[in-house]
Structure formats: C-alpha cells, structure tokens
C-alpha cells in the first residue's frame, strides 16, 4: 500500500464530507493601513481577534499596523487590546491574546514617506524570517480613496506588491469605489496597475452578512419560493436600508457624495442583483459574478426621472427622545448644500422574469430606526371568495428578508381572526437566525477577512459590477444635479420625505413600515 498522494489542491487530510474541519488560512500576515480609523477599531481589529479565537488564523499570523503616529509595537498592541476588549464577539482568552500579540508590529509613517515603506518592507521580511509568514501578505487599505494612488505607488516602489514565486500579495479596498463611472475607472486603473485583478478584493461588508448568503440558500435550495419568484406572482420589490444616525463627524466625506452614491450604488444594487438574478450554474466566484453582472446589465433607469426618484435632507427634530440637528446645521456642511441624505428610486428590469415588476430602492439617514430589508411583495389573489368586508384588512402577501438587525425571514399572509365572523387579517410567520441554529452568526468582517486570507473571492464584487452599478446611478445623479429641485426637508425620526411617498402613490403602492 503506497501512502496517499499529496499535491497542490489535493490534500488527503481534507474531505468534503468532513464538515468539522475548519478552513484555516495558510501562513500570512495582514498589513492594516488606517489603524486609527473608526472602522479598524470598531470592526476590523475585533474581527481579527475573533478569527484567532475560533482557531481560523494560521500559526505565526502577524498583524502590522501602519499609521502616522510615533508609536512602538506595544503602543499599537494596546490599541488592538482595547478594541478587542470593547468589541470582540467571542470571549476573551489569555492564550489567544498572547499568541496574537506576539505577531503585532507597528510601522510609523505617512503615506508619501519613502523610508516608511522601506521600513514596512523590512518589517514584512523580518516576519517572514521570524514567524514564517511565508511571503504572503494582504494590504488592507482602510483609508480615504484619495490616498489609494499614493499608497499603491509606494507599495510598488518598495517591492511590496510583487510576490515571490509560490506566495501572494493581496490588496483590500473598501467602498466607495469612486463617485461616478469615470472616477471608478480611474481608481480601478490605479489599483490594477499595481495589483493583478484577482489580487484586488473590494469589500462590501453587506455581502459578508449571513443573511445575504441565506438569500441564495432560500432562493436556490428550496422548492417553494423559486416558482413564485417572478412577474407572474410578484407585484413589486422594496429594498430598504435605513439608518437612525446622522452623518456624525463625517461631513467632509459625506457632503457632495450623498445617500445614493454612499449606499444605493453598492449595497442596494448588490442586494437587488442577488434578489433578481437567475440561478448560477455554480456557487463559485465566477458563476455568481456572471449572474450578478447579467442582471445588473438588464436594469433600466426610468425615462421620467422626476416622477421616479425622490430625495431629501433631514431637518432638525426629535429622534428617539433626543433633539438632533438638521443636515444643513451639521458642522462642516455648507448652508446651501444640495447633498441628499435620503434617496429613493424606482428601477425596472428588462428580463422575462421581472418584466413589469418595479424594484423600489430607498435609503436614508435619521430615519425611524436602523433596519435593512428586502421585501418581495406578491400580487393579490386573483379572486377572493369572501364577502368584501371579510378581507378589508387583508394586505398583500410578502416575503421579507431581514438583513439587519435581527437577521431572518418573515412571511406575511392572511389568517382568519378567531370568532364567529369570517374576517381575514395579515399575520406574520418569523424565522430568526439566532433562534434556529446552534451557532451564532459570525460578523461580516470575520468572514470577509478570512476569505481574503484564503483567497476565496465569491463574496467580493468585481470591477465590472462596480462599473455596471455606476452606469445605473450616473444618469440619476446627473438629473439631480441639472434639473432636480433642492432636496426636500424631512423631519428626523420619520420615514423620509413626502416626495418618496408620492413616488409610490403614483404607482398605486406604498412603502412598507419596516
């Protein structure tokens, strides 16, 4: 008997039936730019600890922070420690912390400083020698896009972007991927000049959420949903992402960008693509991307943009028991700013499956509560064999996929009200993620960071998708810029401007109360 064969991609210790076996990343390090930012402290650093705690990071894993601070390694260690203690999802374990802390390094420097990048290159080399990171390094650019060019050039100049044989270098960038089609192309050119296309990971953290992947399971693993998932049965689809917060201190970033570019272009159009796409031939990266691109290319922007879009700005008011400022009064926002904090659009899909089914997308800040959901609303039954009075309170059936918070799925349908009279009223049936599985959902960033380190791209949007979504949004933005009136003011803590309600009313529909 000869020993089992071992080759690249064929490991006798792995077996697709072995579902217990964790997918542990190969030897590598993560270089984090922008460690002092909110995202790093609140999400990325805790996610890295949680991965380590779940035993999914390789032995010798190292974390290098890069920022304009005169800090030593242990100062950065303190920052990591602090955010782990405050934010990590899993329990704190001394041995996990110590083993993670051994791999923590810090490189002081600004983005245009050559010696700083030489120091980074030297640090990475030392880690390869001391901790066996094997020349595999991921660069996470948690920094404003205006610095991408500088950082990418520096990475190239210092040789950091070029892997040796048998190792990899990857770059991770966060949205926004540009502010229109032209700038997205320009940004992409900058990054792809230095890193090959398959080494660029664009993070849209919504795609890492369990629910989004569950949407694929719901649609394609079940028999009962797909037959009605089309224009024969569906009346319309509403995709909502509401935030209860204002812009906070991000006026510099937000003013001039607005809700549509910030949210619709990436999150909502990705959710639309996953809701509307055909069944992919496989769930590999390529299969998914093909279908998403196909459906995005079928999106038609309505001709009459004045009637099919709405936008607004939050006005001062009371929200959740707190008095809040209006957008125009926020620090750093021009008094006559026309940037919208609420945007709603109607889109149509030119496919056989969805002909005549409008998709309504809306997003806004300072709305009633924080919620993201996809509601597929069905047509009314063609005939109701009841007295009119019996079904007065019956609405349309709906499947609602709750992306956050309280991830899950709600079904809405009619049921008889108990009593002697025949009366049908809407009821809901609820599936909650947290209540049905013996495992709590990992944070989106855990999944995404692990996928970057494993080099598995299915959940990351490709550049073509980014371009397609700008092609959808650009005409709308142009229209708002040229002909649109100033954004309508809407009271904080409500559900947006009356113009958005009018948009729905014109079609004889109304927004769901999420």
């Amino acid at each position, binding site marked *: 008997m000869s020993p089992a064969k071992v080759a690249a991609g064929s490991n006798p210790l792995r077996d697709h039936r072995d579902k217990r076996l964790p997918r542990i990343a190969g030897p590598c390090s993560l270089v984090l730019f922008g460690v002092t930012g909110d995202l790093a402290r609140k999400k990325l650093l805790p996610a890295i600890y949680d991965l380590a705690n779940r035993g999914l990071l390789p032995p010798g894993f190292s974390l290098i922070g890069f920022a304009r*601070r005169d800090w030593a390694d242990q100062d950065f260690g303190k920052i990591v420690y602090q955010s782990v203690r405050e934010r990590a999802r899993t329990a704190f374990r001394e*041995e996990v912390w110590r083993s993670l*802390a051994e791999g923590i390094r810090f490189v002081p420097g600004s983005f245009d400083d050559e010696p700083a990048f030489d120091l980074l290159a030297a640090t990475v080399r030392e880690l390869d020698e001391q901790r066996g990171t094997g020349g595999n390094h991921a660069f996470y650019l948690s920094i404003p896009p205006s610095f991408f060019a500088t950082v990418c050039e520096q990475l190239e100049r210092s040789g950091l972007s070029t892997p040796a044989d048998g190792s990899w270098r990857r770059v991770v960038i966060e949205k926004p991927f540009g502010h229109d089609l032209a700038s997205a192309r320009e940004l992409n050119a900058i990054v792809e000049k230095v890193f090959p296309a398959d080494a660029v990971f664009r993070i849209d953290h919504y795609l890492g959420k369990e629910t989004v992947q569950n949407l694929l399971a719901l649609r394609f693993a079940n028999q009962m949903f797909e037959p009605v998932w089309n224009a024969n049965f569906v009346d319309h689809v509403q995709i909502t992402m509401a935030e209860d917060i204002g812009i906070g201190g991000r006026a510099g970033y937000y003013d001039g960008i607005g809700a549509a570019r910030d949210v619709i272009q990436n999150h909502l159009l990705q959710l639309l693509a996953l809701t509307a796409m055909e069944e992919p031939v496989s769930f590999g990266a390529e299969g998914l991307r093909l279908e998403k691109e196909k459906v995005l290319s079928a999106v038609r922007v309505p001709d009459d943009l004045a009637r099919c879009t709405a936008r607004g700005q939050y006005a001062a008011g009371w929200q959740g028991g707190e008095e809040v400022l209006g957008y125009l009064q926020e620090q750093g926002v021009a008094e006559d700013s026309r940037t919208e904090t609420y945007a709603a659009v109607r889109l149509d899909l030119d496919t056989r499956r969805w002909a005549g089914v409008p998709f309504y997308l809306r997003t806004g800040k300072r709305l009633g509560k924080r919620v993201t959901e996809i509601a597929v609303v069905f047509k009314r039954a063609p005939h109701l064999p009841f007295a009119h009075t019996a079904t007065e309170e019956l609405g349309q059936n709906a499947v609602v996929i709750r992306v956050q918070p309280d991830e899950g799925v709600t079904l809405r349908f009619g049921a008889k009200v108990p009593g002697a009279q025949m009366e049908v009223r809407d009821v809901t049936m609820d599936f909650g993620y947290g209540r049905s599985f013996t495992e709590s959902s990992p944070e989106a960033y855990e999944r995404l960071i692990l996928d970057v380190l494993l080099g598995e791209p299915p959940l990351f949007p490709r550049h073509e998708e980014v371009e397609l979504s700008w092609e959808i949004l650009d005409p709308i933005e142009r229209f708002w810029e040229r002909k649109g009136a100033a954004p309508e003011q809407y009271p904080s803590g409500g559900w947006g401007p009356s113009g958005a309600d009018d948009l729905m009313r014109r079609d004889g529909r109304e927004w769901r109360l999420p």
Partner: protein
Amino acid sequence: MIVDLPSTTTAAVSARLVRLRSETGSMALSRVLTLIVVVDDEDAEAAIDVANTATRQHPSRILVVVLGSKRGAARLDGQIRVGGDAGASEVVVLRLCGALASHGRAVVTPLLLADSPIVAWWPVEGPRTPSEDPIGVMAQRRVTDAARSPTAHRTVLRRLAEGYANGDTDLAWSRVTLWRGLLAAALDQPPYEPVTAATVVAAQDSPSGELLAGWLAARLRCPVSLARSRNRSGIISVRLERSSGTVDLVRPHDGNTATLTQPGHPVRTIALAHRSDAECLADELRRLDPDEVYEEALTVGLKKVSISKLSASQAIRAGRAPSVAESERTARRLRRAARASGSSAMVEAMPMPPKADDAAQVKEASARRLSEAKERQG
C-alpha cells in the same frame, strides 16, 4: 424558576410545562431541538450545566433522564427548570426509580418537541451499541464520551466501532478538531510530498489520541504509531514524516500554546486550548448528519494504528517524536522576541498611547526604525 413534581406522571409534567411557558412568556421562543441526557444521580448536575452552556445561544428542550435505583416501587420524580435556572433552554429532569428505570424511552416520548431533531447524550457511561439503545434509536445523533466511561476506553472504542451506525459520534472525537485542522492546513502548503509515517504521542487514558491516530492512518495510508505519555496529559504531539523532513505539532501537556515546526520555515506558535465539554457538545449539536470521517477513523483507521511499546520520553530519545522541552523553549523565546507581547494584565496597565502624529516626528521615527532594521539584517 424550579418547579418540583414529586411522584408524578409525564402527562402532568407536560401540562405543567405548557402552563409555565405561557405564564413566563417564553412561549414565543422557538426551540431548536430536544437534547436527551442519560446520566446517573451523581453526575446529573454537572451534565445539566454543560448542556445549558452548550445550548445557550439557541434554546433547546433538555430532557435529563436520571437513572435511580432499580429496586423498590416504580416512581417518577419530575423537575422543571425554566428562566434563570435554565439559561435559554428549558430543562426537564426525570428521575426514574424501580422498574421504570429500564423504560426511559416511554417517559421521554410524550415530552419530545414536534418535528425537531433529537440528540441523545450519555455524559458518562454510554450503551454498548448506541444505535440499539431504546433512547438511541429515537435520536438522529447519539453522542457518547469514551474518555469519561468507567470501562477501559479501548474496549469502549472497540464496541463503538463494531456497533457503528450513522449518527454516532463521540466527544473524544470533537476534542481533536483543532488538531486536525492545523495538520490539514500544514499539508495544504508546499512542498507537496506524501507522508510516509506518522507518530502520535498521547496519554495512556486518552481515546482522543487514538481517534486522531486512526484518522491519520485512514487518510494518509501510511504506518501510524501511537506512543504513550502519562495519564491525564491529553495529546502531546504529532509528527508527520516526509522526504524533506518532518512536520511537528507539539503542545506541552499543561500549556495552551502549540508550536508547529516544518523544514524551511521558522518555528511558529499558535494558541491551542483544551476544549471544554460544552464547546464540544455545542459542536455536536451543530451538525446532525452522519459523520463519515469519524466512522472511517473509528472503524478503519484505528485497527491500523500500531501501539508503540515506547513511552513518550523513549520515543523522543529514539527520534520518533518531537521534543516537548524544546517546543516549550522555542515558545518562550518567540514570546520574548515580540515586543508587543504581554499578558492582558500587562497591557491593561499600560496607558493609552499619546496621539503623537506630528509629521516630522513620525518621519524621524520611521527613519530611525529603518536604520535599526537594516543593522539587524546586516
């Protein structure tokens, strides 16, 4: 809340349960599965604790069948725990005495959740053949624990192997998952060479060591030997031999940090904690499909493992197993070399770093550190 129902019937327990649920409002919570725990009086409390922790995030109904004395009159004592005393789950303790002690199945049947999976767990002594046990027959998943069984674990493993049926699993197997993950990840990397021999060093009383060795034998199709270290030391090390050298994964017996040594790479350390029973049980509840890999390790691999006559220290001296002392030294050296390393208490005591973001100062710092790095690298 704890409600005692001495000398009762299952119908009364069931009715009381429904009433409690509606009174406390826990009605709205869906329950994921029924976990049946079969245990003796003296181990019952510890088992309930583990089951509660394992099902914490996801409420289950836990039916604890406590086997009392078989002598005397048949009698059923019930106890219901909900709310604070049961975490997220609801616990029903059923103490069976007299002739009833042999009819656990009749007692739990009316209390099973409708249309949800059933998991049976024997925290201490399991049946000879779990799938033929009256309670085991009902369950989709049957969890035994060879390490806790009063019978010698080799006998237990042999019986489990002979009577294996889909859905059987053992906590001794869940305890080695992290080890398996690290070994598999090591073979994912080049050089891609077949493993020609493997040696596992594990405690005399550790069925986990045997299952790990069995898994390696079944998967790698190479000679696998098992050397024995002293009792209660768990799994100490695994060595995989390949033509370019050995892959050594070592965890000193009281440590939580392992070292991984491979030719051409510096020694790497990783946290590798002993897993608690609750974690392992939660793992078992996560998947309810047959575990074919466990089956293979238990029924095929285990027979091929040669039990070495060498003790752990003899195996190390003979060059068959990696040195534990050296692994400990390396781990300490790496820890000292890392400046950011430190216990949480040390980091806790440090002040938050100042916001030293003056451009010139930062520039100077990076230039200084660069020249230091160049010196280090010569």
